[in-house]
């Protein structure tokens, strides 16, 4: 490369901007490690497996880890069949114009702010859950997973649809040329082709569900306890994100309590990053 030196304002300006964003990304990750890392290191299993969380005395993250996992899995159970069914129908049975309409609807649905879901959850969903299942109140793991199911529906639907739709038309034609019906083409060609993409979509959705704070915080009940028995979804609970949302204000930046919260945040960050990276890798992998 030539060293023909000349001041290029753009090069410098864009370099500074790029440096800023890198520092921002790296800085926050570094901070989480710096603040939460030693805490996890020192407390170890006492933190990760501990069942009780009393600020100042002991910090057990198990109920939160359980809560996040439980609501996310339940949300997937509700959301995935619906999302896949509409993805398949949209990709395989709808004409291009209607297809874009459905995808547009999903895009808008994805834009509904978390706080609006929270409001719907507090004033409608939790009441229904309470009445239908005859509970004392409706702030339960189940309510939180219903909300999350709706929130991740567009993610799974849109990305899976892209994956199914990207099946090469030669493959489809070859299959339908053998006399296979639309449904048979779908199961023998399109779905196998789209499987990694669908898996990636689900992982990204899990990442989103784990990180969601406000809507979950409003309906999950805020109880730092693993339910008895553990599969009692009608019990209140707590997710990592909702824990952060509820308690961070009490202790902004100070002491052991804060370090414990940042340790939770670090765990959350790792989970989300891992799921997102793996999901993106699957989605890109099948495109090649």
């Amino acid at each position: 490369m030539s060293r023909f030196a000349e001041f290029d304002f753009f090069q410098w300006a864009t370099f500074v901007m790029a440096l800023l964003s890198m520092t921002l990304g790296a800085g926050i990750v570094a901070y989480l490690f710096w603040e939460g890392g030693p805490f996890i290191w020192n407390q170890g299993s006492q933190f990760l497996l501990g069942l009780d969380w009393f600020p100042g005395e002991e910090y057990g993250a198990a109920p939160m880890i359980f809560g996040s996992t439980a609501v996310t899995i339940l949300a997937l159970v509700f959301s995935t069949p619906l999302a896949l069914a509409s993805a398949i129908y949209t990709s395989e049975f709808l004409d291009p114009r209607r297809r874009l309409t459905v995808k547009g609807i999903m895009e808008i649905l994805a834009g509904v702010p978390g706080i609006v879901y929270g409001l719907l959850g507090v004033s409608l969903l939790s009441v229904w859950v309470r009445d239908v299942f005859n509970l004392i109140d409706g702030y339960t793991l189940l309510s939180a997973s219903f909300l999350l199911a709706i929130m991740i529906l567009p993610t799974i639907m849109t990305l899976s649809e892209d994956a199914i739709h990207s099946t090469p038309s030669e493959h489809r034609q070859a299959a339908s040329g053998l006399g296979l019906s639309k449904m048979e083409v779908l199961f023998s060609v399109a779905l196998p082709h789209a499987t990694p993409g669908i898996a990636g979509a689900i992982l990204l959705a899990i990442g989103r569900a784990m990180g969601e704070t406000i809507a979950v915080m409003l309906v999950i009940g805020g109880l730092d306890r693993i339910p008895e028995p553990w599969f009692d979804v009608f019990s209140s609970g707590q997710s990592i994100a909702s824990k952060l949302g509820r308690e961070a204000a009490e202790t902004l930046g100070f002491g052991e309590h804060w370090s414990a919260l940042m340790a939770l945040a670090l765990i959350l960050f790792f989970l989300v990053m891992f799921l997102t990276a793996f999901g993106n890798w699957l989605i890109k992998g099948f495109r090649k």
Partner: protein
Amino acid sequence: MTRIQKEKLFSGTLAFLTLFACSILAFILFAVFSRGLSALSWEFISSEATDFGSKGGILYQIFGTLLLMFASISICLPIALGTALYQTEYLKSSVWKKAFKIFMASLNGMPTIVLGLAGYLFFGKFLGIGVSWLTGALILAAMILPTAHAAILEAIETLPEHYQETSISLGLKPNQRILAVVIPHSVYGIVTGALLGLARAGGETAAIMFTATAFSGVSIPQSITEPVATLQTHILVLAQEATNPTALANAWGAASVLLGIVFFLILGAKAVRSRLSWEPEQ
């Protein structure tokens, strides 16, 4: 059952489920607007909140949300554009290109509550701006950076290679090429990125609830170190008073306004994406 019957049953079931998925949006719109529209009036959006939000309007909340949205996008956009340009036009090393991807992904994967808290410690505590709208705007700028960056990057990367080659072959320097080809072609990406970023910033609550907002007693901030009220946090507080019917009505009203703002921006981004791009080649 014959094959054809089976297929009919199958596609029928799928059609029903698809319709159901789409009707969720209709349900949300109906649920929010049917309750919110009764609270909405000129008076509601043009007067300030009283009695801790259970009475009065949401004037300063609207102002605060808009202020945070526009301040954050003004901070974010130059950084997103600069980063995308540096990455595509100047950066040669593939190792660094990968590093950029990883850091942007970490920023994108960062749960917003964590971003808010870490951002508060840095901007609010360390830089001493405190709980203020500027802190909030900076945090939101960091939050929407990956969104805006991705939209701009996609636009730049879809720039046909021969446009780049032609401008290089004419002897244009990188900065001249950026102005002549890259930016004009990417305008739609910049605009979509900005609109989607605005929509995300407008809908975000967790990142700003402890860091930028105060619930009552705030009007228009007089300096950069003062907090604002926002629609999001207003709804958050009112939602927790679910037993008070007037408070709840006001929450629905505020939610209608918020949904209106966010949808307007998303639809705008969709329209721009299809219109503003350079005409395709034959």
